[in-house]
C-alpha cells in the first residue's frame, strides 16, 4: 500500500467508482494515494480508466461513488489554481500565437500586466519556445505544441502537475526533451502524475507507479521495489563449468532455483551461504547480479496474471509481496 496521510497526499482516491450512462463502469472501487512531491506513473491499456481518473482528478467529471481529494480539496476544482494540467493531445486553436495563448491562461490565473508578461516570458524560456512564441500555433510541430502545453501548465508554478500522455505521437528528440523537463520538474519537488503508454518513460521518470486494468487497480507501489520483487540473484560461473554439476557436488540443489549451462539462479536470501560454498570449493565466478525485470515485463506479467482467472504462482506471489512491502494490489 502506498502510505501517505491526507496532509502529505497530493491525490487521494478512496473507493472511487465512475459509471458512465448508468452501465459502463470505467473505474471500480479505486483506492489510490499519490504522496506530495512524488513522481507517480499511471499505466494501463486503452480503456483501463486512466483518462477517466484524470478527468475525475481535474473535476471535469464527477464520481458515481467514493471520494477524490486533490491537494486537500474535496471539491477538486478549488485546487485548480495549484494544478498544472496537460491534456492528452494538444488542443490549441491554430490561429493564435503561442504567446497569445499563454497570456490568456495567465490572465485567467490572475496574472496580467507586467507580472503576466514576465510569467509568460519565463514559461516560454523554460520550455524553449521563446523564438517561436509569436508564430501562430497552427505552424507548430507536435513537439512544440506539447511544449506549449507544458508552458501553460507551468505558468502558475503549480504544486501538482497532471500530465496525460504528453509524449504520445511526438518524435524521439522531442520525447527526450519532454522527459528531461519532467525529470527537472520532479527534482524541483513538484508532484507529477504521469499517464503514459511508454513503460521505459515511467520507469525512468517515476518513483511510484500504479497499473490500471478495466477500471481496477491491479498493482501499485515503488518502482524500484516492484522491479526487484523477484529477489533472485543470478551467478555466472567462470569458464565452461556446468552449474548442474557444481550444485550437485556442493550439495546446493535445495538452494538453487535454476541451473543451466554456467548460469545459476538462487534466492537473494541464500546468497551468502552459496557464495561461501563456492569460494570454499575454489570455483571461480564470472559475474553476480540481482535479477530484476523491466517495468514492461512487470506490466505484461501483472496484466496477464489479472487476465487469467488462475494467476501463475509467481505473479500471485508478486501481488502478495507488493501488498505487504510498499505496494498495493
Amino acid at each position, binding site marked *: 500500500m502506498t502510505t501517505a496521510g491526507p496532509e502529505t497526499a497530493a491525490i487521494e482516491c478512496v473507493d472511487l467508482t465512475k459509471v*458512465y450512462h448508468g452501465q459502463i463502469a470505467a473505474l471500480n472501487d479505486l483506492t489510490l494515494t499519490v504522496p506530495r512531491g512524488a513522481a507517480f506513473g499511471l499505466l494501463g491499456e486503452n480503456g483501463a480508466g486512466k483518462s477517466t481518473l484524470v*478527468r475525475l482528478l*481535474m473535476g*471535469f*467529471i*464527477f464520481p458515481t461513488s467514493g471520494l477524490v481529494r486533490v491537494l486537500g480539496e474535496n471539491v477538486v*476544482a*478549488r485546487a*485548480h*489554481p*495549484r*494544478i498544472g*494540467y496537460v*491534456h492528452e493531445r494538444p*488542443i*490549441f*486553436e491554430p*490561429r*493564435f500565437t503561442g504567446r497569445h495563448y499563454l497570456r*490568456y*491562461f495567465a*490572465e*485567467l*490565473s*490572475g*496574472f*496580467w*500586466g*507586467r*507580472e*503576466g508578461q514576465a*510569467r509568460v516570458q*519565463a*514559461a516560454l*524560456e*523554460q*520550455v*524553449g519556445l521563446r523564438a517561436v512564441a509569436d508564430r501562430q500555433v497552427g505552424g507548430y510541430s507536435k513537439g512544440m505544441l506539447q*511544449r506549449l502545453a507544458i508552458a*501553460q501548465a*507551468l*505558468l*502558475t*508554478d*503549480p504544486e501538482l502537475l497532471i500530465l496525460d500522455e504528453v509524449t504520445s505521437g511526438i518524435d524521439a*528528440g*522531442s520525447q527526450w*526533451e519532454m522527459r*528531461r*523537463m519532467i525529470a*527537472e*520538474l520532479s527534482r*524541483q519537488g513538484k508532484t507529477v502524475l504521469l499517464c503514459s503508454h511508454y513503460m521505459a518513460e515511467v520507469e525512468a521518470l517515476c518513483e511510484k507507479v500504479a497499473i490500471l486494468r478495466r477500471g481496477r487497480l491491479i498493482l501499485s507501489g515503488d518502482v524500484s521495489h516492484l522491479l526487484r520483487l523477484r529477489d533472485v540473484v543470478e551467478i555466472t560461473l567462470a569458464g565452461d563449468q556446468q552449474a548442474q554439476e557444481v550444485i550437485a557436488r556442493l550439495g546446493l540443489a535445495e538452494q538453487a532455483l535454476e541451473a543451466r549451462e554456467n548460469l545459476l539462479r538462487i534466492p537473494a536470501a541464500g546468497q551468502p551461504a552459496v557464495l561461501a560454498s563456492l569460494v570454499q570449493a575454489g570455483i571461480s565466478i564470472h559475474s553476480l547480479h540481482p535479477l530484476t525485470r523491466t517495468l514492461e515485463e512487470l506490466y505484461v506479467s501483472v496484466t496477464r496474471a489479472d487476465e487469467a482467472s488462475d494467476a501463475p504462482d509467481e505473479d500471485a506471489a508478486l501481488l502478495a509481496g507488493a501488498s505487504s512491502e510498499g505496494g498495493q494490489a
Partner: protein
Amino acid sequence: MSADLSTPLSPLPAKTPAKGMWSAFWHLPSVTVARFTLRSYARSGWLWGEVVFVVPFYLVFWYYSGTEDYFFSTATVGLCLLGLVGTAIMTHRAMNARVYLPLARLPSRAACTRGLVLATGALRISLYLLLLGLALAFNSIIAPRPADIVIGSLGVVANGLVISTLVVTLSPPMATRLMRIIFLAWLVVAFAPLPGIDWLAALFSVARLPLLPLAANIGLGTTLNPGVVGLWPLPVTALYIVGLALAADAELARRDLILH
C-alpha cells in the same frame, strides 16, 4: 531546443492587483473568457460572416425608407435570427475539448458560461448598432426622433440578448437533449392557435405568459412613446437574461464534461 527548468517561477500568491474598477472588471475571468471567445470567433471568420449578414439584411429591408416601427419590427426579427444562429455556432466552437485548459485554471465553471453570454451579448449589441448606423446614415428611417430611437433600440436589443442567452443555456453541454425537447414542446404550445376546448385553451394561454415581455419589447419599437410604465418589459427581460445565465451556470456545473 533549449529548455531551462533550473529556475522555478516565483510562488503563486504574487497575483497582479487590480489598479482600478475598470481593470478589475476587464480582467474578471468571465470577461477574459468573453474577450478570448470574441477574438477566436473573429479569427475563425464567423464574426465577419455575421457582420456581412447585416449589410444585405439592411439592403433588402431598407433600400427604400421606412417608418420607425417598420425598422424596429424587422430589426428585431433580423437580430433574433442572427442571435439564434450566431450564438449556436459560437457556443459550439467554444464548448469543445479546448475548454478543458481554461477550465483547468478556474475554480468554477461559471466563468465559461458567463463569458459566452457576455461575448454573444456584446456582439449582438454591436451588430444592432451597425444596423442602426446604416439606417441612420442612409436616411432609411423616415423622420427619426432620438427618444423613439433609444426606446425602440432597447426593445430590440433586449430581445436579441434574451434569444442569445437562451441559445447558450440550451446548447450542449449546458442542456441535455431532453431539456431541449421540452423547450421546443413548450414553444409549439405557446405559438399554437388556441384550441376549442376551454381547459386546453386556458393551458395554452398560460404557456404564452412567459412570452409577454418579449412581445412588449417589440411593442416598444412599434407603438413608441410608451411612458415610464410602458417600459416594464425591460427590467423583466433583464431578469430573464440573468436567470437564463444562472441556469446555464448551474447546468454546466453539474454536468460530466466529456468533450471532443
